[in-house]
C-alpha cells in the first residue's frame, strides 16, 4: 500500500528521535562532569552517511546542537565513511571544527550493520576541565585556553587510544572526571547504534538514507514555508554589550525575500583581544536557533531545519574569528544572538516575538587555593582552602512574551540547568549565602519581564577565592518591546558594595563574598494595560513595590493592598 509508505516514514522519524533521546539519557546517567549530569550541557544526534543530521535529542543546548550538526562533515572529510572500521570512534574539541571552545568535546561513532556503515552517532558534552587557564575570558590566544584535540581516533577496535588519554590526563586538573566523561560519551553513541540496528531490522531497511532524506526535506520545506509567510523586507537591529575592555556593537541585517532568509552581521565590532570571541559554527548555531524559535518551534531539529537561514559574519569580527584568537567564554556574546535576531523578526512578525531577556547565562567559574588568588591576599589571609575549580550555571529573567509574562531566572537561549546548592557545597568548599529572586528587576509591561536573581557566594571559613567573571548586560539593559520597559541591568560586586569588573578573573579577599545581581527581562506592551489585579498580585509577592505599581503601572494600592479603583482610573487616564 503506497499510502502507508508516508506513514511508515513518519513512524521511523518518531523512532529515530526516540533513539537519540535514549542516547542522550545514557550520557546524562553516566557522565562525571556536573555540567552534563546535573545541568544537561550536552547534545546527541544521528547522521546519515553523508554527514547530515537526521535527528537530535530534545535534551540539549542549542549552541551544541546546531554546531555539532555542522561539524560532522569535517570528520568524514578527514576519515571517509568508506574507510571507517567497526570499533572506530573519533573525537575532537577543535573550536573551529566543532563547538567553539575546548570544553565542548564531540565524539563520533560509525554505526555498522551487516558490515556496512549505516549512519553516524555523535554527541557533544561540556567537559569542565580541558587544561589551560580553564573556562574564562582572560586569554589572549586560544593556545592558553587548554589542549586541542584535532579530529582523531578516540578508539580503534573499540580500544581507547591510550596515547591520547595519556596526553590528556597530564594536561588537566581533574583527569578522572575528564576520562569518565569520555567513557560516558562512548557509551552514549553505543546505545544509539544498538537502537538504530533494531530499527533497521524491524522496518526491513538497509540504511536510513531514504527516510533521512524525507525527514530533512519535510523539515526544510516547513521552515521555508514559514519564511515565505513572513513579509519580504530588510529588517535591521543592533545591540550594545559591555565587552571586556571596550563595549561591543552587534549589528544584524535580516533580509527576507520569498522563502530566502539571510542574517548578515556586517558592521559588527572587531574581535576582542580577550576570550569572548565566537567562531562561525557557534554564530550560526545561535542565529538559527533564534530564527527557528519564532518561525519553526515545532519543527524537529535536523539538517533540513538548520540549513535554511543563510548566516553571514565578516571574517575577523567578534562573531567570526580566526585562530589564534581566544574563544573560551564565547557564550557571553553568542547567547545574545537570539535577542539580536528577535529584534529583526519583530518587525516582520510583531505579535510573535518576546522582549529581550538576560540572554547569556551568568556562569561564575570559581577557583580556590593558593594558586588561585592574588599573592598579597594569599599572604595576608588567615585561612586558605585546598585547590578547587567549580562552575555554576545561572540565569537572569527572560523577556515578556506576546501573551505571557517573561520567565524568572530561566535559561534562554541556553538549555542548561543549575546544580543544587547542596550538591555544590557537598563537593566544594564554596558556600552559597543567597539565591533569591531580584525584586523589581523585571521590566514593567502588559506582560512583565521575568525577574533576575541575586546570588551571593563565599568560601569556607571566609577563605579568599577567585572568580573568572564572564557576565554581560551590566551597562545596557535588556530592552522592552511595544512600550514595555527595560529590564534591570546586571551588577557584579562584593558584599560590601565594591563594584567588580564584568569580565576577567578577580580575587575575592578574605571574609568577603561575591554578589551577582542578574539582569531581568524587558517588559512586553504598555504596562498601563496590565490587568490591575496582576499588578496587585506582583506587589503582594514583593516582585514590585507599591510605588512601582503606581509609577510604572498606574495602579494605586491602598495601605491594605487593595486597589484604589478611582485613583487607578485617574492615574491610568493621565
Amino acid at each position, binding site marked *: 500500500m503506497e499510502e502507508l509508505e508516508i506513514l511508515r516514514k513518519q*513512524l521511523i522519524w*518518531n523512532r529515530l528521535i526516540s533513539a537519540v533521546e535514549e542516547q542522550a539519557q545514557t550520557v546524562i546517567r553516566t557522565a562525571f562532569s556536573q555540567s552534563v549530569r546535573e545541568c544537561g550541557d550536552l547534545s546527541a544526534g544521528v547522521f546519515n552517511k553523508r554527514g547530515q543530521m537526521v535527528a537530535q535529542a530534545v535534551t540539549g543546548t542549542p549552541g551544541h546542537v546546531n554546531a555539532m550538526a555542522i561539524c560532522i562533515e569535517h570528520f568524514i572529510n578527514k576519515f571517509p565513511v568508506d574507510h571507517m572500521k567497526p570499533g572506530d570512534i573519533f573525537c575532537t574539541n577543535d573550536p573551529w571544527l566543532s563547538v567553539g571552545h575546548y570544553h565542548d568535546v564531540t565524539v563520533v561513532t560509525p554505526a555498522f550493520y551487516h558490515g556496512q556503515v549505516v549512519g553516524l552517532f555523535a554527541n557533544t558534552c561540556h567537559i569542565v576541565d580541558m587544561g589551560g587557564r580553564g573556562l574564562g575570558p582572560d586569554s589572549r590566544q586560544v593556545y592558553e585556553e587548554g589542549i586541542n584535540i584535532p579530529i582523531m581516533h578516540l578508539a580503534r577496535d573499540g580500544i581507547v587510544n591510550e596515547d591520547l588519554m595519556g596526553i590528556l590526563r597530564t594536561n588537566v586538573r581533574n583527569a578522572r572526571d575528564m576520562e569518565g566523561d569520555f567513557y560516558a560519551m562512548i557509551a552514549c553513541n553505543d546505545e544509539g547504534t544498538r537502537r538504530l540496528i533494531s530499527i533497521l531490522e524491524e522496518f526491513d531497511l538497509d540504511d536510513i538514507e531514504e527516510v533521512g532524506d524525507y525527514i530533512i526535506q519535510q523539515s526544510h520545506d516547513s521552515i521555508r514555508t514559514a519564511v515565505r509567510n513572513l513579509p519580504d523586507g530588510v529588517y535591521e537591529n543592533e545591540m550594545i554589550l559591555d565587552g571586556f575592555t571596550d563595549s561591543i556593537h552587534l549589528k544584524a541585517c535580516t533580509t527576507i525575500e520569498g522563502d530566502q532568509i539571510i542574517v548578515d552581521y556586517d558592521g559588527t565590532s572587531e574581535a576582542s583581544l580577550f576570550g569572548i570571541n565566537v567562531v562561525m559554527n557557534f554564530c550560526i548555531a545561535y542565529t538559527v536557533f533564534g530564527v527557528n524559535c519564532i518561525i519553526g518551534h515545532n519543527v524537529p531539529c535536523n539538517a533540513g531545519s538548520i540549513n535554511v537561514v543563510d548566516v553571514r559574519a565578516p571574517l575577523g569580527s567578534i562573531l567570526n574569528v580566526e585562530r589564534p584568537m581566544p574563544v573560551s567564554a564565547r557564550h557571553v556574546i553568542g547567547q545574545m544572538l537570539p535577542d539580536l535576531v528577535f529584534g529583526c523578526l519583530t518587525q516582520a512578525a510583531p505579535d510573535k516575538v518576546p522582549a529581550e531577556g538576560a540572554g547569556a547565562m551568568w556562569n561564575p567559574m570559581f577557583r580556590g587555593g593558593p594558586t588561585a588568588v592574588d599573592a598579597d591576599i594569599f599572604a595576608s589571609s588567615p585561612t586558605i582552602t585546598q585547590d578547587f575549580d567549580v562552575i555554576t550555571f545561572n540565569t537572569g529573567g527572560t523577556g515578556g512574551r506576546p501573551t505571557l509574562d517573561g520567565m524568572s531566572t530561566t535559561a534562554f537561549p541556553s538549555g542548561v540547568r543549575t546544580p543544587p546548592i547542596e550538591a555544590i557545597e557537598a563537593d566544594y568548599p564554596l558556600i552559597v549565602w543567597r*539565591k533569591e529572586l531580584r525584586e523589581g528587576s523585571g521590566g514593567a509591561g502588559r506582560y512583565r519581564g521575568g525577574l533576575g536573581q541575586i546570588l551571593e557566594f563565599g568560601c569556607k571559613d571566609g577563605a579568599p577565592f577567585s572568580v573568572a567573571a564572564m557576565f554581560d548586560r551590566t551597562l545596557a539593559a535588556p530592552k522592552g518591546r511595544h512600550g514595555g520597559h527595560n529590564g534591570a541591568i546586571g551588577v557584579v560586586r562584593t558584599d560590601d558594595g565594591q563594584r567588580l569588573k564584568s569580565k576577567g578573573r578577580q580575587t575575592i579577599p578574605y571574609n568577603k563574598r561575591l554578589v551577582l545581581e542578574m539582569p531581568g527581562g524587558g517588559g512586553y506592551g504598555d504596562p498601563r494595560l496590565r490587568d490591575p489585579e496582576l499588578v496587585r498580585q506582583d506587589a503582594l509577592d514583593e516582585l514590585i513595590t507599591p510605588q512601582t505599581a503606581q509609577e510604572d503601572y498606574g495602579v494605586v494600592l491602598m495601605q491594605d493592598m487593595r486597589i484604589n479603583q478611582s485613583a487607578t482610573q485617574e492615574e491610568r487616564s493621565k
Partner: protein
Amino acid sequence: MHDMKSTTRAGIDIGGTFTDIVLETHGERFTSKLLTTLNNPADACMVGLKSVVQQAGITPIDVDLIIHGTTLATNAIIERKGAKTSMVTTRGFRDVIEIGTEGRPEQYDVNILKPEPLVPRRRRFTIPERINSTGDVLHPLKETELEALIPKLDKAGTEALAICFLHSYANPMHETVARDYFAKRRPKWFISISSDISPEFREFERFSTTCANAYVQPLTSTYLAEFDARLKTAGYQCQMMMMLSNGGLTTVQTARDVPVRLIESGPAGGAIFACDVAQRLEIRKALSFDMGGTTAKICLIDDYKPQTNRRFEVARVYRFRKDSGIPLRIPVIDMVEIGAGGGSIAQIDTLGRLTVGPESAGSAPGPACYDQGGTRPTVTDANLVLGRINPTDFAHSLLTLNTEAAETSLMTHVANPLNMSPISSAYGVTEIVCENMANATRVHAIESGKNTNDRTLIAFGGAAPLHICQLADKLDINRIIIPANAGVGSAVGFLRAPISYEVFRTHYQHLDDFDAEAANATLVKMEAQAQSTVKLGVSPNTKLTTNRVAYMRYHGQGHEIAVALTNDPLESNVAHSLKTLFDIEYKVIFGRNIGTIATAEIVSFAVTVTAEPDAVVTMPSSYTVEHSSHSTRIAFDSAMEEERHFTIVPRKNFLALKSVNGPAIITEKETSVVVSSIFKAHAMPSGDIELLRTGKRTLAKKTE
C-alpha cells in the same frame, strides 16, 4: 491491629471518574463500580461497600480489613485546592521552590509554561540560620526570630506550614526546634519539616516535597478521619489501611502524617495488580500497560516486583514533559505516563506529520463518534472505523457510537490532508499512538538499564486491549496477558499489597575511608523507624522482613544506582565488596566497567520493612462458562495491514472455546481484546487470556 491472614478484605479505589470496590472472602471475589461522588468521595464508597457486602451475603462486622487508595492528594495539587500553606526557610533562599532548576522543559517554544509553586511568594518567609553540608552550624537559630515570624504567619492565614532549611538532611536540629516552637504556639497548624518528609540532599526537590505534604495535609487528614468514623458508624469494626505511592500499605495515622506518600496510589494499585498476575502465572519479567481515556501508564516488573523510584513529578503543565511539574522525592512505583488514551486527539502538524495527543477530547465533548459535540478525531474514532469496536455494544451499551461521524472527522482532519483513505488514516492514528507508547517505554527502560523485548505484556484499562498486539510488535514482545477483572485492577491490587514502609536518608560515605560504625548507626535508626511504622498495622507475631539498599555512585558522578545490602551489620572491610557489587551493577546498566579509574561512594540508604504477605490466593474466574458461539466481522488487521474477517467471541464464551487464532476480537462490556493475525488467544483456567505470537508482522511492501 491486624493479622495479615485475614480472610475477608475490601479494596476501595477512588479515581477521578470511577470508584471501584472489590471484596474477597473465602476465595470468592465481588466487585462494584460507581461514579465518583466528587463533593464527598466517601458517599460512593459507602454505597459500594454495602453492595459488595450484600453480594457476599455477609455483614460489615465480618470484614477483617479495608484497604483504601485515593486520588484526593493528587487532585488537590492538580486543582490547587490544598490548604493555605506557608513556608519558613533559610534566610537568602525564599525562592528555591520557584526558581527550581532554571531549566526549560522545551527548547524552541518561547511560550512554554512553568509550574506555579504550591506556596506563593507572599507566604514564604525566611529566618537567619545556617547549617553546612557536614551538619555544622554556621549561624545559630534564635527563638526570638521564630517569635517575630508568628504575626506574619498569622496574617498570612496559615493553615499548614512547611519548614525547609538548607542541609537539614545532615542535621535536622534547626528544623525540629522550629517545629516544636510553632507547634507549641499554634497547635492547630499542620507542620511538615523537610528532614522528616524527605531527608535527602538537593534542596529544590526536598523543599518541594515538604511543601506538597503540608499543602495536602489538612484536607487528607480531615477526609480520613471522617471516612474512618463513617465506617465505624456503619458497623465496620476493622482497621483501614492506606495504599501508598510505592505500592505498600500503611496505617491511617501514618497516612495523615505523610500524606504526600498517598499521591499516585491508584495507579500504584494497578501495578501491584499486574505484579499479582505475574506471580500467579510465574512471569518473571513483565511490563504492565494500563491505558485509559487520557493517559497510558507503563511499569517494568521483575521477579513479581514493580520497579520503584525516588523521583516523581506531579501536575505537569507542559505536554507531560519532564521538568514541567512539581518534583516530589517520595518512594514511588516507577511508571511512565504519557498523554495517550482513547480520547487523545489526532491531527496533522505543519510538517504534514500525523500526531496523536497529548491533547484529549476527554469525556466532554468526547470523541467524534460520541455525537456529543466533538468534531476532532480521536483514538476511539480510529478504532471504531477500523471495526475493532462494536458501535452498539460499547461501555455497557450506555452509548451508541456514530461510525459515520468518526469517519467524517478522520477524513477532514487526517485522511484528506495526507491523501489517504479513511481506513488507512485510522490505522495511522493507532500506529502513531502505539509508537508514542512504545518509544516512551523504551526510553524509560534505558533510563533503568533494562530491556523490553524479553518481557510479557500485562494489559488492563479500557483502551489497552485494543492496541496490545500493535504495541507488542513495536516492543518485539511475544506474549501478552489480559487478566480477569482488568476493569477494577487497581482495587484488586490493593488487596495484594504488603504492609510496608520505606525510610530513606542521605548519608555521604566515601568507600576509601568507610566508617562502618556511622553507617550502621544510621541503618539501625532507619530500620527502627520503619519497623515502628509497620508494627502499627500488624499483629505482634507477624514476621517482618527488612530490605536495605545503598544508593551508590562513582565519586564525581551525579546519578546513583541501588545496590542491595545484606541485613548483617556492615564490617569495616565491607567497602571492598561494596565496590565490587557496585562495579558489577554499573556494568549491567551501562555496559562498561570503569571501576579502575574511579572510586565509589555511598550517597544514601533506603530501608524497607515489610510484613510477610499472604500466600497468593488464586481467585476462580467470575465468568460462567457458556456454550461457544461466535460470529465474524470485517476489521483492519495490523499485522497484515489490510481488512480481514475477524472471529468475534464474547469473553464469557471464550472459556469454552479454549483458544482462537487471530484475527479475532474477544468482546467485553468495557472493551475488546483485538487479536491480530499473528497472535493466538488462549483461555487460561485462571480466567485470564493469553495471547501468543505465531508469526512476524509483514509490512505492506512498497508498490515499486
